[in-house]
Each structure stands twice: as C-alpha cells, then as structure tokens.
C-alpha cells in the first residue's frame, strides 16, 4: 500500500506533462508563417461592441461632456495636474498621459497627405487672444491611417478590467479608429479641406510640448 504513494505522484506528474504536450501540439498545428496568438481566442467582436457603443453612448458623451479645446489647452498650460484631474481620464495611476473629450470651431490652414497618417493643421477660432490668427493651434487626424487610442482611453465607461486581455482591449481601439476612417471621413475629400471652416467633436491625448492631435468623432463643415 505504502508503495502506491510515489506511484500516485508519478501519475500526477504524467498527467501534468500531458497538458504541456497538448499545448505543444496546438502550436505545431499552426500554419507556417501565420500569426496565431494562443490567448486571443477571437471571441471578442470589436465591430459589434463599437456598433453598440458609438451612437448609444460615445456620441452623447462627446456632446455632453466635451470641453472647448482652446480653453482646455489654456487650462492645461496653466495647471496641468489640476486640469487633467478635472477634465481628463487615464487608466492607471501614473506613467500615462491624460485623455480628453474636446470640441471646437476651426479653420483648416493646411493639409498634409504625403504620409498615410494624414494631418490637417487647425487654427482654432476661439483661441483666447489668438482667434483666427492664421497659426496652427492643433492638428486633426484625417487618415487613412489613424494613430493612437485617445477615444478609448478618454471614455469613462470603458475599462481594461472589462476585457479578457490587452489584445481585445487593443481591438476595441483599432475598431474605434476604423469607425472614424469609414464613418466620419466617408464623405470627406482631403484636397478640398484647406481654407474651410468646421465644427469638430473629438478626443485628444495631452503631452506637454507636443501639439495636440484631435481624433474626430463628428465633423460639421461650414
């Protein structure tokens, strides 16, 4: 009887190693060169998630809670910590920049589409003491490649805790940016933007010394 104890241990070990073997087999079954990440099970449907979020929660939040951009920039310049606490949001307690829901009225000074990360330079029309002075106060992402995660990171009803892992959380941000590309800019011709006036609603990530880049969720051309 006593001898059965190590035997039980042995079979436990065998069972444990079985798990490892199964995992290796799963890896071996991968298509050569194909990208497969074993903890991304594909169960998260970012498109459906954003589809629900966009009209029902994101746009109302942007309308009701956004801060006028030029006054926000002024507040941030005067008291970054205070203004960040009051208007901004970030996921962690330290080491990450704050994100803000913003709105404003601007004239497009110049459009750069040489890079696929297309950028329009904005002269904010309500900039205190510098309204419509012909100088760029902020930048607007116009695609077709959109960078950053300002939209996701500014929304108070989206938390990393609600997602299985960083890939699902990233998929959400990518889908939000795709919605900007395919929705907000569906009908916009970059070559016709220069000189035009617009009202924008969007999101920014603020880092001192770097011009803010607006990722828009709603544009009205005047």
């Amino acid at each position: 009887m006593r001898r059965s104890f190590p035997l039980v241990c042995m079979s436990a070990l065998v069972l444990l190693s079985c798990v490892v073997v199964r995992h290796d087999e799963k890896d071996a079954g991968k298509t050569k060169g194909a990208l497969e990440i074993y903890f991304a099970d594909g169960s998260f449907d970012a498109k459906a998630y954003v589809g629900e979020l966009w009209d029902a929660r994101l746009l109302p939040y942007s309308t009701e809670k956004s801060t006028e951009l030029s006054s926000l920039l002024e507040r941030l310049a005067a008291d970054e910590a205070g203004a960040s606490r009051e208007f901004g949001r970030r996921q962690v307690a330290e080491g990450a920049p704050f994100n803000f829901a913003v709105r404003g009225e601007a004239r497009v000074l110049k459009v750069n589409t040489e890079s696929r990360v297309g950028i329009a330079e904005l002269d904010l029309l309500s900039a205190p003491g510098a309204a419509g002075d012909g100088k760029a106060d902020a930048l607007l992402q116009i695609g077709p490649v959109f960078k950053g995660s300002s939209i996701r990171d500014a929304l108070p009803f989206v938390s990393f805790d609600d997602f299985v892992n960083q890939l699902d959380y990233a998929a959400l941000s990518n889908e939000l940016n795709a919605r900007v590309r395919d929705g907000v800019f569906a009908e916009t011709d970059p070559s016709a933007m220069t000189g035009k006036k617009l009202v924008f609603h969007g999101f920014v990530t603020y880092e001192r010394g770097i011009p803010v880049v607006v990722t828009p969720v709603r544009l009205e051309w005047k």
Partner: protein
Amino acid sequence: MKLSKLVLAALATAALSSSLYAAGQGDAAKAATGKKLIVIITPSPANPFFKSEAVAAEARAKAMGYEPMVLVHDDDANKQNNLIDTAIANKALAIILDNAGADATITAVKKAKDAGIPSFLIDREINATGVAVSQIVSNNYQGAKLGAEEFVKLMGEKGDFVELVGKESDTNAGIRSKGYHDVIDQYPALKMVARQSANWSQPEAYSKMESILQANPNIKGVICGNDTMAMGAMAALKTAGKGNVIVVGFDGSNDVRDSIKAGDIKATVLQPAARISEMAVEQADTYLKNKSTGLPEKQLIDCVLITAANADKLETFALKQ
C-alpha cells in the same frame, strides 16, 4: 551559559520584530511570527529584462521592511506551480509573479488565493480576473505600435523589410508581431520579404539574418520582436557591409541603447520593467494594510519609444527624468 544564550536569542527576536514595526509595515498578526515574506517569481534572469524586474522588486520589498525570496520558473508552468507551493508552505504574505502562461497560471494563482496569499502579477497578464489582486501589465501591443510607427517613418513608408519574431510559444512574441502588422500592413508600399522566428536569441538572429540577406540583398529594414534579436541582426548586417539598414528592436536594453547612440540600431521600445515591479510591491503593501489597493485589478502600463533623442536617459530599463 544556557540561560544567557536564551536571553540573547530573545533579545535578537525582539530586535527583529521591533525593526519590522519600526519600518511601519502593519499586519500585526503576521509580524508577530517575525517573518514578513514576499515571494518574487520571474522567468530566467539570463535575460536582463527579467533580472531587472526581480532586482527591482527585491529592492523595493527590502526597503519597505519585507523579506523577499526570489525564485525562477524558467517559463515552465509545472515549475511555477511548484514554486507557488513553496510560497504557500513558507506562509508568504504576498506573491509577485511574472507568469509562465496566460491560461496555465490561472489555477496556480487561484491555489495561492485559496491559501490566503494574494498575488500581484507583473509584465504579463492572465486570461482571468478576480484571481490575482493586481495585474500590472506591460502594454506590449501599444509598445509594438510605437515601434512600428517609428519603423514606418524611418522607412519613408516604403521598401522591402524583414521581421524577426520571438519564441512562438510566448504570448508576447505574438502580441508584438500583431502590433507591428496592425501598423505596417496599412502601408501597401512596405513589403515584407521574410518573416522568421529567431526565438529571442542573439546568435540565432545573427545566423537567420545572414541567410535572409543572401536571398534578399537589398532589404531596407529589419523589425525585431526584442532587443537581443535586434543586436544579432545588426551584427550580421554590419558584417555584410550593410550597416545602413534600418533596425528596430523592443525592450529598451542597455546594449541597444549603446547601439542607438553609436548610430547603428535606430529605435527600440522601453518596457518600464523596474517601475512595474516596484508598483507591484507597493500595491501588495497597501493591500496587506488596507485589504484593498484602491486600484483596478488590471492596469496597463504604456511603453516608451527610445530613439537617439532620448537614449541618453535610458538606464537598466528605466528612463531618468
């Protein structure tokens, strides 16, 4: 004789526990046993990234009045399971863990939780919430996008390039590659001519790069899943007289920092390993005192792009302010 020895021992014990109290680390019940153990478990310190992680956690734990015990699981889930048993048997107050698998780790951490030991995960996450107290996750995806965006810029948005991928069984190899491709694939003029795994290894990256170059002598850039592979690729390129090929890495090691300063490798992405470890120990301390960290369980820590502009400030996986 016997009596004086006993008195001495009693004095020593008293001195020890009073010093523990003096450090201001509450939890009287555990402190009364004279041991305030925090178990730190990481992958092999042969990789300077994990070494820096373990060293930072150990130092912070000591500074906060705990007794750190540093263990290594070598990315082996079975070994990790045994180390968790060791932590339970030694009645650790908390476990700081850079885990050996997003799924395999869930049961191990749950076992510790059932034994009353809270776990604080660093660097990599697990596919479950409510098991660990904190998951302070290095945002590899965001870091990969930063690296890829810089790579695209350096390439002028066009040209032939090679990707060297990490160990395929490692979650982060996949995440980084996905981040790279989610950016790069949006530029139709960038063409990937080869994609191979060099298993995080410098010599393997060297030999893979050598043979890739024979078939593709005119490549313009190489994007690598980590810094050791970037070092290997850069060395092979220089040997072949192609030191001007754009190489980008990931991790923020001192080796790549020096290469960037010498004008060879062009960029890398820093994962703030040391700070993540310190945060985990600080959150463990707060949790042991207050039964809560006051923070969400899952916390993504962003990576930082390192180029010639800020390489000077990089030292052992931390940016000097």
